[in-house]
C-alpha cells in the first residue's frame, strides 16, 4: 500500500479557497483511507467543517481507486453537470490520485491535501507503516517500518484528520429509541445514527458509502405514527421520533427474513460471517423454509476475482459499488422478480467483463459472493488448501 500523510492544515486549506468556489471533495477509498485521511466518513467531516465556515461544497465524490485514470474519467462522465459547475476539487488522495485528478480536470483548481512517502504495509500491531521510502524522504528501506507518528514528527506534518478536535458538532436533536432518549444528528440517516449509538440492528444491503435501497428488509423498525414496519436505512431522522428497534414482533419478522434469505441461497450462504452472526443472535438452528438447491456455476475466469452466484442475496451492494465507486457498471441486475440475478458485463464471464480490478465489489459484498482470488497449493503431499484454478499453459517471460 501507498503511505501518505496529511500535508495541509485546515487553515492552509482555507487560504487556498475563496467563498465563490464551488467545491467538490474527491476521496480515494483504498490506501489513504487506511492511512486515516480519506474515505466517506472523513469527507463528510471536512464537508461539514467547510460548510460551517461558509464555503460551498456541492458534491462528495468517493472513488474506489483514485490512481486509475480511467476510473477518474468515468466519474467525470457520470457526473458531468456537477463537474462542469465545480471550480475547485479538494483531493483526499495520495499524490498519485492527485496526479490523476489533475490529468482528468486540467482546467479546475485541484488542491492536494496529502504527501506521499513511498510504499509500506498495514501492520496488525502498528497500523500503516512505511517500509520502502521514496528518495525525497532521505529514509532507508526498513522492514520494521516507520509509523505515521514517526513521519508526522520527522517531517512536521499533521497527525490524524483535519483538526479532528475542532470539528464542528452538528446540530443534535433528541429522539426516543426503545423507551430511552437518544441524542442524534438532525436530518441524518436513522440506521447510521442507531449504529453509531451502538444499537444493534441487522443490515445486509446498507453501507453509508453506497447509500440505501432498502432491499434486504433486515433493518426494519417501528416508528410511532407511521404504518407498518419501516426500513431504518431509508429513514431520515425527525425531531421527536419514537422508534422501537427490538420487540417480539420485530424479532420474529427479522428471523423470518433471515431464514428466507438463507433458504433462497442454500447452505453455502451460512458460511458468511454476517449471516452466521445474526443466525447465532436470533438462535436460528434450523430453517423453517426449504433450502434451495441452487447450483449455479462459480465464475473463476478472472485472474483476481471469483463470483459465486449461489451466495448472492441480491442486496445490490456490488452493483452500487461498481457503479458509484468505480464508475464502471460492470456488475448489474438482470431479469425481474424472483428471476432476478446479478450478472457481469452483458451476462458474460468476469474475465470478459472489462473489470478494472478496483476490488470495490469484493470489499462491500456482505456474503463473500464476490471474493478476491487466493490460490495456494502444496507441491508435494496432500493439498490442504483449496485449489481454485491452475492454468496449464506456461509461457516463460522471466528473462534468462
Amino acid at each position, binding site marked *: 500500500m501507498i503511505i501518505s500523510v496529511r500535508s495541509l492544515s485546515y487553515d492552509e486549506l482555507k487560504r487556498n479557497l475563496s467563498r465563490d468556489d464551488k467545491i467538490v471533495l474527491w476521496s480515494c477509498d483504498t490506501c489513504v483511507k487506511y492511512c486515516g485521511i480519506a474515505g466517506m466518513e472523513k469527507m463528510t467531516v471536512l464537508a461539514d467543517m467547510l460548510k460551517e465556515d461558509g464555503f460551498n461544497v456541492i458534491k462528495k465524490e468517493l472513488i474506489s481507486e483514485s490512481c486509475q485514470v480511467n476510473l477518474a474519467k468515468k466519474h467525470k462522465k457520470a457526473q458531468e453537470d456537477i463537474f462542469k459547475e465545480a471550480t475547485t476539487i479538494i483531493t483526499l488522495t495520495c499524490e*498519485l490520485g492527485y496526479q490523476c485528478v489533475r490529468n482528468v480536470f486540467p482546467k479546475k483548481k485541484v488542491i492536494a491535501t496529502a504527501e506521499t512517502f513511498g*510504499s509500506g504495509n*498495514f501492520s496488525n500491531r502498528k497500523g500503516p507503516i512505511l517500509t520502502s521510502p*521514496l528518495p525525497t524522504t532521505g529514509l532507508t528501506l526498513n522492514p520494521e*517500518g516507520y509509523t505515521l507518528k514517526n513521519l508526522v514528527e520527522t517531517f512536521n506534518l499533521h497527525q490524524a484528520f483535519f483538526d479532528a478536535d475542532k470539528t464542528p458538532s452538528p446540530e443534535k436533536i433528541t429522539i426516543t429509541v426503545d423507551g430511552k432518549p437518544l441524542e442524534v444528528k438532525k436530518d441524518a440517516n436513522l440506521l447510521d445514527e442507531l449504529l453509531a449509538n451502538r444499537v444493534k440492528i441487522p443490515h445486509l444491503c446498507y453501507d453509508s458509502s453506497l447509500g440505501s435501497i432498502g432491499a434486504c428488509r433486515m433493518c426494519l423498525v417501528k416508528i410511532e405514527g407511521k404504518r407498518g414496519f419501516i426500513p431504518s436505512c431509508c429513514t431520515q431522522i425527525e425531531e421527536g421520533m419514537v422508534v422501537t428497534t427490538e420487540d417480539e414482533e420485530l424479532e420474529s419478522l427479522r428471523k423470518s427474513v433471515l431464514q428466507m434469505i438463507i433458504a433462497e441461497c442454500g447452505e453455502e450462504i451460512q458460511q458468511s460471517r454476517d449471516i452466521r452472526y445474526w443466525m447465532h443472535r436470533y438462535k436460528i438452528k434450523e430453517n423453517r423454509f426449504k433450502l434451495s438447491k441452487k447450483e449455479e456455476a462459480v465464475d473463476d475466469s478472472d*485472474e483476481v476475482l471469483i463470483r459465486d452466484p449461489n451466495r448472492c442475496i441480491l442486496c445490490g451492494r456490488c452493483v452500487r459499488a461498481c457503479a458509484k465507486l468505480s464508475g464502471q457498471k460492470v456488475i448489474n441486475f438482470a431479469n425481474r422478480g424472483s428471476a432476478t440475478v446479478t450478472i457481469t458485463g452483458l451476462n458474460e464471464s468476469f474475465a470478459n467483463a472489462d473489470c478494472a480490478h478496483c476490488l470495490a465489489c469484493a470489499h462491500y459484498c456482505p456474503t463473500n459472493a464476490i471474493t478476491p482470488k487466493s490460490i495456494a497449493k502444496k507441491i508435494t503431499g496432500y493439498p490442504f488448501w483449496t485449489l481454485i484454478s491452475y492454468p496449464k499453459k506456461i509461457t516463460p517471460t522471466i528473462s*534468462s
Partner: protein
Amino acid sequence: MIFSKIESYEDIIKKLDKKEDKIAIISCNTCARTCGNGGINKLNELGFRLIRDGYNVSDEAVVLYACSEPILREAKLKLDANTIIVLSCSAGWSCFTRNYPDKKVLQVTEDIGLVITDNDREIFKVVMPYKGHESEMGKEYKINTGEPLSGEKIKLRCAA
C-alpha cells in the same frame, strides 16, 4: 500502485541452495500482477522452471496483497518451506520478512517507482521513481506484462 521489476532467473537461482532450500513461492495479485511481476502466471512460470531445474519447491500461493498483515492472517499459510520467494514489491517482502522471521525471505524484485494506471488503455506510467531509477520518470509500460511503451499516452499536468 507500485512498480517493481523481477530479477533474471539466473540471478534468482544464485540466491538458492538446491540441497538445503525448501522453497515457497508467494505471488502478489495486485500491483505486482498489474506490473507483470506477480499474479498466477508469474507464479506458475517461476515454479515450473525451478521444479524443472531440480529445486525443491514445496508451496505456491497467490495472495491479494502481499503487503497486508490482515490478508496474510486470513490466508492462513502454513509453509513447510525454509525459504520464501516473494513476487511482489519490497513492501511485500518486508511484510513476509517480519511475519516469517525463522525463514529466509528472498527479495527478487527491485522497486522502480509509484505509478498511475489506465486500465482501459492498458498502460501504467511512472510518476514517483525510487532511488536509482530517476530516469524512469514519465515512462509508460503495458499493464500485465511490464513491456516498455514508446510515446506518452497519459499526460502529466504538473508536479505534485
